[in-house]
């Protein structure tokens, strides 16, 4: 069974801090790893990672994948209160296109 474990489960930081969110996974047939941000309702897409060692970047957010060690990290620099959300990591199984999600990391950014 595919599995995703995220850590820490929750995190409280102050504006301006840098945070690193972790995601480790097990999957029978890896196609991709995805990061989503969930605020009130729908998860919104952040990154899709398919290759090891290639950093994806979008503004203050960046992410990288290590397919040998089976993990990914999501970095957020100079955090803002608007970054407060649940960050979901999911792994896609190439055999059936199913996404398996982790429990999510609740990030709270205090002013």
């Amino acid at each position, binding site marked *: 069974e595919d599995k995703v474990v995220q850590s820490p489960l929750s995190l409280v930081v102050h504006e301006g801090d840098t945070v690193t969110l972790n995601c480790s996974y097990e999957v029978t047939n890896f*196609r991709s790893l*995805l990061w*989503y941000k969930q605020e009130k*309702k*729908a*998860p*919104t*897409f952040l990154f*899709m990672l398919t290759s090891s060692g290639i950093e994806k970047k979008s503004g203050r957010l960046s992410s990288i994948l290590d397919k040998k060690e089976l993990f990914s990290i999501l970095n957020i620099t100079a955090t803002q209160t608007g970054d407060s959300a649940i960050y*979901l990591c*999911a792994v896609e199984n*190439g055999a*059936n*296109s*199913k*996404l*398996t*999600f*982790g*429990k*999510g990391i609740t990030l709270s950014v205090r002013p």
Partner: protein
Amino acid sequence: EPEVTQTPSHQVTQMGQEVILRCVPISNHLYFYWYRQILGQKVEFLVSFYNNEISEKSEIFDDQFSVERPDGSNFTLKIRSTKLEDSAMYFCASREGRNTGELFFGEGSRLTVL
């Protein structure tokens, strides 16, 4: 920006009643999904749908659940006889191809079964 839309945003129903949740996927997308998230728990896969038939379904997706694309734009999830444990947020998602593109989620339909 194109988006996946879902209705209703919130539905309250009595146990044993039938519920239909509706989704309009992004127009050029071919693969459709339903996921659910019980309060405080993980987002879980229910079913994927392509070419008017189910591609994959999870153990959760038992005989009480069905999906349909009745008219070429809507994609519905029906729960025939709701149980208390069906209370959850149900997310519809779509993507362009099986192996390509990101998965776009709708805003979700919150189902409360009393």
